[in-house]
């Protein structure tokens, strides 16, 4: 595919490679469409300044929205597991930490704020930031389920001493996942370097050049990716002298 970008004299050719299945993209956007209402309706009980919205019929309406969205939010990973179990397991494996992640996180501020990519170690299909987002969302899904379902159906059956901890952990999962969501939203929507993110989540493909730059271990394979990384580091060191 050839595109003309404003400010560049020559047209550039983009080679697209597949990244996400249709179900994954559907799941991602349904996750968004359930997570956002869940967060908003939950905050009604969380922030004291939203008290008027929590009172009486308004509060009951927000609880209904919260519960409908919770069913969708809870069901999505299960649907994914039923239809594409191999993809799910593959993705969870790729979310697990690897030894380059610390180096990536250290180099990330210079990259995301000032666009300097020399120090970025090669990453797999997901980089360390995406892994952090994925892991927090997976853990939050489990915690939301383990605390939310008993709070829904177990009121009056579960001893109050346990119920209080459920409320607390539901809050903690919300704080962690909402913070992560905000960062994820910014990087996907507003950060200039992450231009391919929305394309991938809409059409399921990513640019080969983008993949080579951001996901070298996935694109080239781990060995070749490390060679390129070392060569780039040597080049940068020579320039520096």
């Amino acid at each position, binding site marked *: 595919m050839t595109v003309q970008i404003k400010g560049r004299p020559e047209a550039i050719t983009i080679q697209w490679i597949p990244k996400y299945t249709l179900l994954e993209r559907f799941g991602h956007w349904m996750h968004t469409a359930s997570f956002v209402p869940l967060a908003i309706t939950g905050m009604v009980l969380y922030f004291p300044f939203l008290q008027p919205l929590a009172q*009486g019929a308004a509060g009951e309406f927000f609880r209904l929205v919260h519960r409908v969205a919770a069913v969708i939010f809870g069901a999505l990973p299960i649907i994914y597991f039923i239809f594409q179990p191999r993809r799910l397991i593959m993705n969870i494996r790729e979310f697990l930490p690897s030894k380059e992640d610390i180096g990536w996180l250290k180099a990330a501020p210079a990259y*995301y704020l000032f*666009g300097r990519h020399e120090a970025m170690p090669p990453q797999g299909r997901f980089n360390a930031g995406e892994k952090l987002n994925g892991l927090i969302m997976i853990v939050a899904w489990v915690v939301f389920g383990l605390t939310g379902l008993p709070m829904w159906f177990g009121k009056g059956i579960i001893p109050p001493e346990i119920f*209080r901890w459920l*409320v607390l952990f539901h809050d903690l999962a919300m704080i962690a996942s909402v913070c992560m969501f905000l960062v994820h939203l910014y990087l996907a929507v507003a950060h200039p370097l992450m231009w391919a993110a929305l394309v991938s989540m809409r059409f399921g493909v990513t640019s080969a050049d983008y993949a080579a730059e951001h996901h070298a271990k996935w694109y080239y394979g781990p060995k070749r990716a490390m060679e390129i990384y070392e060569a780039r580091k040597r080049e940068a060191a020579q320039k520096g002298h």
Partner: protein
Amino acid sequence: MNGKSLQKSAMSRREFLSLSALGLGVSLAGTQPSPSPAPRSASPDELAILYDPVKCVGCRACQMACKRWNKLPAESTDPLHIYESPQGLSAITWNIIRLKRTDTGWHFFNYQCMHCTDAACVEVCPTGALYHDPRGFVGLNRDLCNGCGYCTQFCPYGVPHLQTTNILTGEAKSAKCTFCQDRIQSGIGGPSCAEACPVGALVWGKRGDLLEKARARVTELQSQGLNARIYGENEAGGLHRLSILLDAPEQYGLPAVPKTPGFARAWQRVIQPLGNVAFGATIVGILGAFLIARRNIRMEEVR
């Protein structure tokens, strides 16, 4: 060469400044004032109820008067309908005489809302439906209640109960003894339970007067060789339902030290403010990153 290195150092200074601005923003977002409420204590002029189990004959007139005034339906507890009596507090039973056999004999105990000064239910209620009336008791405005049920889980006495109409949607209303708030607020009289008691086991009045009365009564009972004590003078900041006990509070199913507001406070005054700091830091961090990245990253150089 010289010019280039100068430019380079200027660049890193700009980077340094923008990073420190970001750090400052994050720390400013973290220093929001945390709510520190003035310590409440029960004043002697506030209203209270005093219960004397030695005078109580267990007639349950208080139970009946409570049901009648608050228009609460009867509870069926016996499948044969021979001896029906509620087993404990519920959404439709706000006042009950408990009969308990202990090592020292049979104890009557009138159980109802203790109307704490330091009330966990008011602390956790997200709607303001549960409130401290200036006259001391803990009232409930059911129109504001959304049925979240936090009060039922945080009360150290297990008093509020949810009247659930739909378990799936969670439609419910909290219910508990309100000190007959409508009688008090409209000046009709005192709590119906105390008004109905035929033997003076339940009396109502100003808390200071009742405490004086309770102390005199405890001295009198002690002179008769009974192990009498007052419950509620200092518990949970001072209860507005004072009781004379003839045994340890645990023998009456009462906590010696009602602890729950501590947990509620840890949750609402530590975890929630910490969460707000995390939200603030995240938002300020993102805005800072947005402004810095916009200045430094040229789209023309992006692959």
